[in-house]
């Protein structure tokens, strides 16, 4: 339960994701406290969309987010450094292919 990891007197923490306009992705905007999802969306509306930043809001209770360990960064990401053939720019295009 989320409550177990939260101070009993405090509302749980929520992560807020905002879509700035239709067609774009939701982007992480920040976090806030709220008693439940409904209040989290309303609080997000008041805290993060006051200057016309968004058209859609997602909220996720912070305890439900599982993150990678920064200590694992080397083993997770470094092996990609020398695999330049994974990028399309590695390949030479035949002249016959135009407009690519």
């Amino acid at each position, binding site marked *: 339960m989320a409550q177990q990891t939260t101070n009993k007197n405090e509302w749980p923490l929520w992560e807020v994701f905002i879509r700035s306009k239709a067609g774009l992705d939701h982007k992480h905007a920040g976090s*806030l406290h709220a*008693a439940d999802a409904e209040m989290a969306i309303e*609080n997000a509306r008041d805290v993060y969309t006051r200057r016309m930043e968004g058209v859609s809001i997602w909220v996720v209770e912070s305890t439900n987010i599982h993150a990678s360990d920064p200590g694992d960064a080397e083993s997770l990401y470094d092996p990609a450094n020398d695999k330049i053939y994974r990028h399309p720019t590695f390949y030479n295009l035949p002249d016959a292919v135009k407009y690519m």
Partner: protein
Amino acid sequence: MNDQKALLQYTLRLADDGLILGHRLSEWCGHGPILEQDIALTNTALDHLGRARSLYQYAAALFNTLPEADKATFFTSVSLQKEVSEGTAIDEDDLAYLRDGWDYRNVLLVERPNEDWAYTVARSFFYDAFNSLFFKELAKSNDESLAAIAEKSLKEVTYHLRWSSEWCVRLGDGTDESHARMQQAINELWAYTGELFTMNDADAAVAAQGIGMDLAALRPQWKELVALVFDEATMAMPADAWMHTGGKDGRHTEYLGYILAELQFVQRAYPGMEW
């Protein structure tokens, strides 16, 4: 009362309701129970203030086109009358800062003190529920300016009502203490809800012109709306008893004086100051 004076008084009242409630809600700024709600209330306060500004601008324009004889007698606030007698055209700031309490027309409900979160929620809930019905009707007004302001306000009011309804339910259907305090706030503020639906001379005059409406006719709908939320909030609807009135005719509770003292002090002490 002629038509233009009635429209002016009506417009002023709507503006005064917004300014005074906006001021009350702004008193929470920096004192909210939690940062997010502090911001929510400040946003709402600005909505009320924004609506008040539009209405004051319209009211000032109406006043400035009154015949001189009417201008000289419409207000009895000394500072404002001095400007008028000098032949100056008045503006929104003059209306907000230079009128004394008896020239304010807001309903008594909006000047009630914040007390605690439950009172603040109950006051907003009663007023927001009224506004949601009122502005829907006013959007059909014959008066284009009022209809346009009403149209814009409706979206804001919808959110205000959502906020105050939800808090009513949260506190009402919350802990024993929040339940008791919410019910107490409702019981005490109930006697100030009747005035929302009374018709004074200005109300009757603008209703006859198709600008305003029969406010009494809104009350059954309002009670239905309130009952719906009370039901979810496990709140008991107070019995209809004697209701306070007077604000619409300039007779206020002692609280308005304190609000105006704080709101007007700088402009009264340093006239025309800008920053």
